[in-house]
């Protein structure tokens, strides 16, 4: 399987009246075709901005300052707005968190889906409608042929998200970016939507980037994971590596702070002290260092490079350096150029 996406040293900032908010500070990652890549992080960690940069939806006052986004051999940061807009919806699609605000309330579903399909294909109106009904059928909307003439408010939250997925997949994109697709939904509906995304991925062979703060959702759906914090990538690896061999103190802290369903219910949680960094004045070194119990002098001064633990597993923590003191639970790896 080839690479579908390669992001090199991506830096995206927002120039607000308070100063520069450095939302993403040097992300590097690659994604294989057919992969489901999860990006986890808390609010303000830069996970959504990373995705919006990939699809070229960073608006004023935001700007991609630096870096390359190589999709299918072309650098997306070099494309014009026109070229990007041809790409969006056709090769790369996106689903947003809130299905109500991303559908236009004054147009019917039919209108909105046909618009997308005709923008990217040369189907006639009636062909586009047929295709739209087929897509709605595929995502499990009953009586799609009639329901297609409804307005967004006539659907429930879960159904609206199905419509969003159908629209996003209607031009058979190579890459689908889903930004918290199930966060606004109830658990029972969330289970349906996640199930649907997995089914669509199998049937249409789409690669998916799934952005979420929910470790449970990640464990269920993804094949590989990126953990972000304070605008930087802290750790990358396969699902099993991130869940069972986590080597970054932030990832480890994250695992400990969520209650496990198997754990005894009155067992105490282990919180991470402090709060996330202010990206107007990001810390000079590792963004997690002010909250890290193992922080050393170098952590405060210089951000750590990605240390390679296995072929697929890298982690940005100085504790993995060969000269660092040994800390229980953190395995050392080889230094990789950062």
């Amino acid at each position, binding site marked *: 399987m080839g690479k579908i996406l390669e992001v090199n040293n991506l830096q995206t900032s927002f120039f607000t009246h308070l100063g520069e908010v450095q939302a993403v500070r040097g992300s590097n990652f690659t994604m294989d075709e057919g992969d489901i890549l999860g990006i986890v992080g808390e609010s303000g960690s830069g996970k959504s901005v990373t995705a919006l940069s990939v699809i070229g939806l960073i608006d004023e006052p935001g700007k991609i300052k630096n870096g390359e986004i190589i999709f299918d051999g072309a650098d997306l940061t070099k494309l014009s707005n026109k070229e990007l807009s041809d790409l969006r919806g056709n090769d790369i699609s996106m689903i947003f968190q809130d299905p109500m605000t991303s559908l236009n309330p004054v147009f019917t579903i039919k209108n909105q889906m046909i618009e997308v399909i005709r923008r990217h294909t040369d189907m006639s109106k009636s062909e586009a409608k047929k295709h739209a009904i087929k897509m709605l059928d595929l995502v499990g909307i009953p009586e799609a042929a009639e329901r297609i003439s409804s307005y967004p408010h006539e659907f429930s939250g879960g159904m609206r998200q199905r419509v969003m997925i159908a629209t996003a997949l209607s031009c058979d994109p190579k890459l689908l970016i889903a930004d918290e697709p199930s966060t606004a939904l109830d*658990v029972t509906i969330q289970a349906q939507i996640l199930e649907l995304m997995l089914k669509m991925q199998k049937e249409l062979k789409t690669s998916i980037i799934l952005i979420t703060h929910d470790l449970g959702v990640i464990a*269920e759906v993804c094949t590989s994971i990126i953990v972000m914090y304070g605008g930087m990538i802290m750790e990358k690896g396969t699902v099993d590596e991130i869940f069972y061999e986590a080597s970054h103190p932030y990832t480890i802290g994250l695992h400990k702070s969520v209650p496990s369903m198997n754990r005894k219910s009155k067992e105490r949680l282990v919180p991470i002290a402090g709060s996330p960094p202010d990206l107007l004045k990001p810390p000079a070194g590792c963004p997690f260092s002010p909250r890290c119990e193992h922080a050393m002098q170098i952590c405060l001064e210089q951000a750590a490079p990605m240390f390679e633990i296995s072929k697929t597993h890298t982690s940005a923590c100085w504790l993995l350096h060969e000269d660092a003191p040994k800390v229980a639970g953190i395995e050392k790896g080889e230094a990789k150029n950062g």
Partner: protein
Amino acid sequence: MAEMSKAQSTENISVDKDVLLKVNNLAKYFTVKSSLRKSHRKYLKAVDDVSFEIKRGETFGLVGESGCGKSTTGRTILRLYDPTAGQIFFDGTDLADLSDRQLLPYRKRMQMIFQDPYASLNGRMTVNDIIGEGIETHNLYNGAEKTERIYDLIHHVGLKKEHVNRYPHEFSGGQRQRIGIARALAVEPELIICDEPISALDVSVQAQVVNMLEDLQNEMGLTYLFIAHDLSMVKHISDRIAVMYVGKLMEVCGSERLYEQPLHPYTQALLSAIPIPDPIVTRKHQRIILEGDVQSPINPGEGCRFATRCMYKQDICTQVTPELRELEPDHFVACHLVKEINK
């Protein structure tokens, strides 16, 4: 149903010393459409015939999906809404019909922590004013004593003395929630209704607040009604849990038991839908995926509210509303078919 609750209110409720809050057949309807003709009226039955009790010092979890009426239940108990029917016995006294003046001493004994720490603090008041307001209303402390009390509260929730003269916008979400908790504690309440107190916070901060709530409970002997949709957090914090669905309680029992042996088909589906942060467990996990649409709470007819999505549905389910029955000691279920399902 209204007549039935009237009859019960005249009965002498045996005062159990251990029970702090007893809710009897509580109902809260919102009028969606009023009309002179009864058949044309439309009510949204947000809470419909709900009964439960909370013992002193315990944490009672109330879970359900959005729109099921769990927050309305909490607010009606505090009399932020006037109940349509039913009684709310707080320490033996029925709050449902008290006037505002009569309610005042009870308001001191019950407090609330809200979901959104950005919306629930007045942006024009300093932390000192926010926390001090309740102390003044109830004439608890004055002058230097009051200042001392505020410092003490601030310290309890993990903030610093110098924070008292700041405004809410100077704090992060987690810190704001701490201020909200200090405000609730200021009047020395016995019962705190926590309405989704952590769902607006970051994952790494949630654990801080939950641990703090547990510490405060141990220290001050507080009783919590913990309302949430995050089932794993509710399991963690609660002693007993009630599962709510479209205005009705479906199942009530001890939290360990509920997760080990849920009896109601809705609870079973709900628990199986929780994403588990453990890939190996997830791969083996068999998930119940519910079909069908959620019953609308506007003028729901007779029958089980879950029947539209239940895979075991039979004729009786759409004709007769199931009652919450004690199936096993301290395990209540509202389902006609519970015995057949759990054979």
